[in-house]
C-alpha cells in the first residue's frame, strides 16, 4: 500500500510542477497556429448515448487551457411503437468545466466535468432532470513530426524543425459521477439521463496538421462502455471527426473559422446481458464555427447539423447542436 501512496504523491506533485513550469510555453504564439490540438469530448449528453464523442472541437487554437463550455442540443423522439405515435421533444443543456493541462512536452491531460439540465416535453407536460453529469479524464501522448534534415548541411543549432504534423494517442476514463435512473431507461430516447452509471474506457487517436494559414484536426475515439449497477450497459461507441480551419491573424487577435464533418456509431444497449432491439444507431453531422483568440482568452462557437442519421430504430432524431465556450489559455 505504501507503494501506491507514494505513487499518488508523485503523480500529484508532477502534475503540479508541470503546471507551473509549462505555463510560459502554452500561450506562446508561433505564427498563427502551431499549437493546434484536437479535443475529444466526451459524452455531452450524459450517456455518450445520443451525444457525441464526435463533439470534439472545442479548441482549435490553443494547446492548454481551462474553460467553460455550453452546449445546447435538441432531439425529437417518437413515443410509441407506431408511425404516427406522438412525438416528444427533448432539449439538453450542458454546462461544462473543461481543461487541458500539460504534463510535459509529450504528455497532457484533458478533463471535463459537465452539469446537465435536460428537459423533455411530451403532450405539453415537461419533465426535467438535472445535476452533475459524468466526468471524463483522458491522458494524451503527443507525437510530433519533424521536417527532414538535409544530410549534407551541418546542423548548427541542433534543433529539429516541427513539420506541423502530429499524432495524439489518448487513453481515458469516464466516471459515473452523474446519476443513472432506471425509470428513465423506458424512454424512447435512452440519452435522457444525467449519467450512464458506468465506468467507461476511452481510446483515442488524433492526427493534426497546423500550417501558417490552414490546419486540420482529425480524431477517432472508441468508448468501451461498462455495465452499471442496474445491469444496463450502453452500447460501445465509435466517434470520428475531421475539421479544417483557416487562420487569420492580426496583431491583436486570431480568428479561425472552421468547417467539419463528424459522426458517431452506437452499438446496441444491453440489459441483463441481452441486446435490446432498436438501440443502435449512426449519425453524421456537419459543423461550422469559429474561434477568436484575444490575448489569453479564446472564444468559440459552433453549429452542428445532422446530415444523415438513424438513431434507435429511427425513433430518435437529432435536430441540431450549438456550442459556445470561453477558454483561458494556460
Amino acid at each position, binding site marked *: *500500500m*505504501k*507503494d*501506491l501512496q507514494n*505513487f499518488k504523491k508523485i503523480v500529484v506533485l508532477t502534475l503540479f510542477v508541470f503546471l507551473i513550469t509549462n505555463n510560459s510555453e502554452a500561450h506562446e504564439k508561433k505564427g498563427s497556429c502551431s499549437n493546434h490540438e484536437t479535443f475529444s469530448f466526451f459524452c455531452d449528453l450524459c450517456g455518450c448515448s445520443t451525444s457525441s464523442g464526435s463533439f470534439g472541437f472545442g479548441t482549435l487554437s490553443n494547446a492548454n487551457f481551462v474553460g467553460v463550455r455550453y452546449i445546447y442540443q435538441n432531439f425529437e423522439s417518437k*413515443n*410509441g*411503437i*407506431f*408511425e*404516427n*405515435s*406522438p412525438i416528444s421533444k427533448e432539449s439538453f443543456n450542458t454546462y461544462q468545466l473543461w481543461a487541458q493541462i500539460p504534463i510535459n512536452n509529450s504528455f497532457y491531460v484533458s478533463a471535463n466535468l459537465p452539469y446537465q439540465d435536460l428537459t423533455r416535453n411530451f*403532450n405539453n407536460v415537461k419533465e426535467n432532470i438535472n445535476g452533475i453529469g459524468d466526468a471524463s479524464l483522458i491522458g494524451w501522448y503527443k507525437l510530433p513530426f519533424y521536417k527532414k534534415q538535409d544530410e549534407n548541411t551541418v546542423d548548427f543549432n541542433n534543433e529539429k524543425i516541427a513539420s506541423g504534423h502530429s499524432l495524439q494517442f489518448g487513453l481515458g476514463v469516464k466516471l459515473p459521477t452523474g446519476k443513472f435512473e*432506471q*425509470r428513465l*431507461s*423506458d424512454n424512447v430516447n435512452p440519452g435522457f439521463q444525467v449519467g450512464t452509471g458506468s465506468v467507461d474506457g476511452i481510446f483515442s487517436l488524433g492526427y493534426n496538421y497546423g500550417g501558417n494559414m490552414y490546419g486540420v484536426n482529425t480524431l477517432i475515439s472508441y468508448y468501451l462502455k461498462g455495465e452499471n449497477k442496474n445491469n444496463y450497459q450502453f452500447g460501445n461507441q465509435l466517434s470520428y471527426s475531421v475539421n479544417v480551419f483557416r487562420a487569420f491573424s492580426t496583431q491583436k487577435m486570431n480568428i479561425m473559422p472552421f468547417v467539419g464533418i463528424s459522426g458517431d456509431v452506437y452499438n446496441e444497449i444491453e*440489459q*441483463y446481458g*441481452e*441486446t*435490446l*432491439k*432498436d438501440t443502435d444507431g449512426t449519425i453524421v453531422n456537419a459543423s461550422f464555427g469559429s474561434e477568436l483568440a484575444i490575448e489569453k482568452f479564446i472564444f468559440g462557437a459552433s453549429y452542428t447539423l445532422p446530415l444523415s442519421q438513424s438513431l434507435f430504430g429511427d425513433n430518435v432524431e437529432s435536430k441540431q447542436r450549438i456550442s459556445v465556450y470561453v477558454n483561458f489559455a494556460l
Partner: protein
Amino acid sequence: MKTLKFTFALLLCATIFACSSDDDSAEALIGQTGPLTLKFDNGVGDQDFIFGTTYNKSNNESFQLTNLKYIISNVRVKDSNGNTFMYPVEDNAFIISEANGNNAGEIYLTLDNVTAANYTEVTFGVGIDQERFALGAEGQGDFLDEASDEGMMWSWASGYKFIRLDGTFSTTSVTNEPLNVHMGSVGSSLDNYREVTLTFPNTVIVRQDTSPEVHIKADIAKVFDGATTANFADGYDQVHVDEVETPIIANNINGMFSVHHVHNN
C-alpha cells in the same frame, strides 16, 4: 512494485468472483413474487389506432370505429426452465378496451404476485373458454358484471362477446354503413375461444423489486385482413352468431397479436 502488482491481481480476482456470484439462483427466488404488466397497444398496420380515423382495408373497403374491446383470459407465462406460471383462474379474465387507454393509447393489464423467474413467453386466450363458461353465472365472479357493463355479453345463454367492434364501413358501393363485429362462442354450441403464444424478444425478469412491462401490439387490420380475408361486401359488416363467419374472425384475431418489445425495470 511487486506488492502493487499483487494487490492489483488480487483486486482483479475479487472483482471477477464478485461479478460471477449468482444472486438470482433458484433458491434465492423461492417465495419471491412481483408484478408483470402487459401493455396492449391497438394499431392498424403501422398506424396507431385512433377512434374515428378511417382505415383502408383490402377490396377497396374502409372502416372507422367508435368501440373497440376484446376479452383476454387464461394469461400464463413460461420461464426459461420450462415452468409455467398460471395467473389465478378466478382473476384471469380481462377486458381490453381502447377507451381505457392512456394518452399513448396503451391499455395496461397488470398481473400481481407473479412468481419470480426469467420468463420467455406468454400465452393467453382471446375470449372465454368452455370450462370457465361451464362454471355457470355464479362461477364467473365479478367478471360477469364487468362484461355486462362493458357490453361484452349477450344473454347469459349466448355468453360473452369475445371482441366487439362498432363503427361504420364503406365499400365501392355503400358509404358509412353500420359496422358491428360481435364475435363470441355462442353458448356451448360453437367454441370460438382461441389461444395465442408469443415469445418475448428479451427475457422478462420478474422479481420483488422489478416491474417489467411487455408491450403487445394488436393489429386490428388483421381482424379483416388476417389468415382469411373478410370483406364487408360479403357480409362481414355484421358478424354476430354466424357459424361460418365467427370462426373466421376468431382465427384472424388469433394472429393479430405480437410482442413489440419488453421493458425490464
